[in-house]
């Protein structure tokens, strides 16, 4: 059981005077916190962009374009068929051009970047 002196000693330990540079110390801590967050954000951003670029290049160079061109023919045939049924099938034909490929690639980049960012953030 703690005697009077031990309690007094605990109090003496807890009664530390305020150091003159306590504000500067606190600012230093805040600065380090902010720097940590900024570094983290940059790392996540860079990792996302890198991942996105890698993913996009993989998509572009993996015969995707040829496959989509093949699919274009099917889409044209489909749109021709649809135009007979419903005249408002311009959407399908618009996306079936080369433009559609780049939209898909762009979306893939965004998706990969987002997924990678989330994974890194979780880690």
């Amino acid at each position: 059981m703690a005697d009077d002196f031990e309690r007094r000693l605990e109090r003496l330990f807890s009664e530390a005077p305020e150091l003159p540079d306590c504000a500067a110390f606190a600012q230093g801590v805040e600065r380090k916190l902010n720097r940590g967050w900024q570094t983290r954000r940059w790392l996540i951003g860079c990792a996302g962009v890198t991942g996105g670029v890698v993913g996009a290049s993989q998509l572009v160079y993996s015969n995707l374009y040829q496959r989509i061109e093949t699919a274009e023919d099917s889409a044209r045939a489909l749109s021709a068929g649809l135009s007979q049924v419903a005249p408002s099938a311009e959407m399908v034909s618009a996306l079936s051009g080369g433009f559609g490929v780049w939209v898909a690639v762009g979306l893939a980049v965004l998706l990969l970047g987002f997924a990678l960012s989330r994974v890194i953030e979780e880690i």
Partner: protein
Amino acid sequence: MPGTKPSSFASLHDVELCSHAAAGEGRAFGELARRHGSAVRYLLRRMGAQAAEADDVAQDAFLTAFQRITEFRGEGTFAAWVKRIAARHYLRRLQRDRRLSELAAEGGEEEIEIAAGDADHRIDLDEALKALSKAERLCVSLCFGAGLSHGEAAEALNLPLGTVKSHVKRGLDKLRARLAPTEGAVLEGRRGNG
């Protein structure tokens, strides 16, 4: 809670500031560092750290506390919680620099001569601690400054419990002789004198 102006942080209780900090509000945590930074740095100095090293370790301790802020449940005081983190950080640093084993191997017989506490010279805790060996100082500071139990201190220092207890006992005896002499000496904790 979110949206509190930084200027109003000074009026908030530590637990409220911790809630803000847990929501990622760095300024709220800065206020906590301003309030308790000195106490943490003093503890580290009393454990034997040089001023610059104490500041460095204290900053690391606050950063760790920020990362683990959700673990602080407000059961004890925030200051006590950060002090424990800081004490463990300092011990890890000693261990990393292989200074801890030297301290552990040190006997309790080392005696540093300082002026005895008498009525003519007000003696404070920091002066009194100089009379202790490094190991005694470390053990006493851990148990009475950082609030560790003897068992926790033994574990943190990687020393047998009996060794820690004897360091604490010898340290207390020396402090008692310096801080609470039987006749007339003034017990004076250093307060507000920087």
